[in-house]
């Protein structure tokens, strides 16, 4: 059973064919990775699936439902959540409120209840604060709940973004280079963390990652993009043995 099915997805920016006729599937409960050299179109692919860009052609199906033409926030409510390659947190909200933003977007009180501070609103806010704390604890950030994201070191900011993305309890979690900038110990911890949350939530994950160690350890299935096109797909062994993939990575720095 596939949680995500993408068919012939393409987008052009002026002359740049950033993503060309890419088709891929992600199986429910699995970790599917997208790798490829810099500028291959990986982030653009994420931006298309999560609704930031509208594709020039092609189709995106989530859990059997066509979401191609939906807006970004609608896609979020359908069950796709994501993190960003260049961390994008809300710097004037506390770390707890950053996580809560995902739950706030799903809280059902109206503006009158809000301005009057009615009991229904208070109750919902309290519930959501507690729920957010649960997600903060999950990524081991419970002790900095009241601090701001920009006072956190890089690795913790990445974890906070992960907690925020998890809080909406998505059907599909998309992580854009979540291990970038982490030191080797943090990378190990990150791999552990992903295993842990997958155990808790039975998540389907789509992962973009440059660190092949992370990719090969975690992925059930791997897609390789190059110059906007799909170059290869397969499991970890197949990809590691693929000559075309090795050639595409020649001259690329492994970090």
């Amino acid at each position, binding site marked *: 059973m596939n949680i995500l099915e993408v068919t012939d997805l393409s987008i052009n920016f002026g002359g740049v064919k950033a993503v060309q006729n890419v088709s891929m599937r992600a199986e429910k409960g699995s970790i599917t990775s997208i790798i490829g050299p810099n500028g291959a179109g990986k982030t653009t692919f994420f931006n298309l699936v*999560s609704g930031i860009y509208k594709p020039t052609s092609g189709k995106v199906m989530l859990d059997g439902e066509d979401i191609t033409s939906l807006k970004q*926030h609608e896609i*979020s409510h359908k069950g796709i959540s994501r993190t*960003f390659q260049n961390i994008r947190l809300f710097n004037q909200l506390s770390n707890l409120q950053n996580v809560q933003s995902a739950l706030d977007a799903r809280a059902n009180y109206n503006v009158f209840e809000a301005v009057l501070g009615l009991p229904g609103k208070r109750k919902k806010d309290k519930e959501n604060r507690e729920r957010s704390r649960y997600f903060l604890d999950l990524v081991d950030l419970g002790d900095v709940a009241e601090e701001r994201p920009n006072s956190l070191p890089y690795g913790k900011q990445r974890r906070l973004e992960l907690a925020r993305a998890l809080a909406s309890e998505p059907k599909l979690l998309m992580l854009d280079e979540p291990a970038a900038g982490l030191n080797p110990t943090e990378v190990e911890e990150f791999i552990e963390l992903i295993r842990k949350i997958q155990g808790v939530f039975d998540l389907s994950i789509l992962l973009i990652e440059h660190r092949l160690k992370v990719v090969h350890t975690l992925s059930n299935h791997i897609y390789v993009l190059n110059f906007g096109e799909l170059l290869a797909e397969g499991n970890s062994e197949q990809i590691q043995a693929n000559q075309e993939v090795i050639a595409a990575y020649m001259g690329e720095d492994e970090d």
Partner: protein
Amino acid sequence: MGYYASVLTTATINLMAILSMYVLMGLTGIFSMGQAAFMCVGAYTAGMLAVRTSLPMVVVVVISVGMGMLSAFLVGLPVVKLRRDYIALITLGFGEAIVALLNNLSNVTGGANGINGIPRKMNIYLALGVLAVLIFLLLNFKNSKFGRHCIAIKNDELSAAAMGINVPRIKLLAFVLAGGITALSGCLMAYNTTFIEPMAYGSVKSIDWICFVFVGGVSSLTGTLVSGLIFNLLPEVLRVFSLYRIIVQGAIVLLIINFMPQGLFGEYELSDLVKKVAGLFKKKPAVAGGDKQ
């Protein structure tokens, strides 16, 4: 009413309008350069109803606020999907257009002569009472999902949308709320000054308000209140120098923006301080001495 009471009443009513700028700029990060036009809408609605009908003041106030919200909705609808810099420009245009319209519909609105003979029904107690209610409602708004949505949008629109926030809808909400508050201020001002002159509500006034919010600290309701009060009373204090008012004001704004880019209050709220002080009394005195952060 005494001189000081009357000065304070006017300042209090102006303060309400400045609070609308806090909702837009401080919370949501939207620059409205034509916000004073909604004050004009409120003042005219109130003026015309007060002079030509016998509706009680409460009803007039409600209708004025409704008109402010309606016009903000109509202006906001095409605006909220645009980029921020365009929003500033377009609200500037809309603002001037609304004022010009009211100015030129002379048979309905009295044109450039404005409206005279509005009954004076404002006093300092009423003004302060309304302001207090407004602050209460706005603090609740800020501390609700809506306030947090607004701040999220101000910080990172793309990320806010990715969390499931309907960004244009929240911007429109902020716009309508601000329009209602500004119109309320205009309506009360009509009952305070007893006449309306349309020329008083141009973009210069809107830009004044933007400056006030910046000086107080864009992200602080308390800061907005304090700086709004200072700038409203300043011309009274410096009456002799009224010509130089704009220079003094400009100098203050420049100094603050250069040396305190976060404004006087940054993100601090008086209510935080009250909570902190209350917290200190609960804890052991030993902790009280330490300055955290």
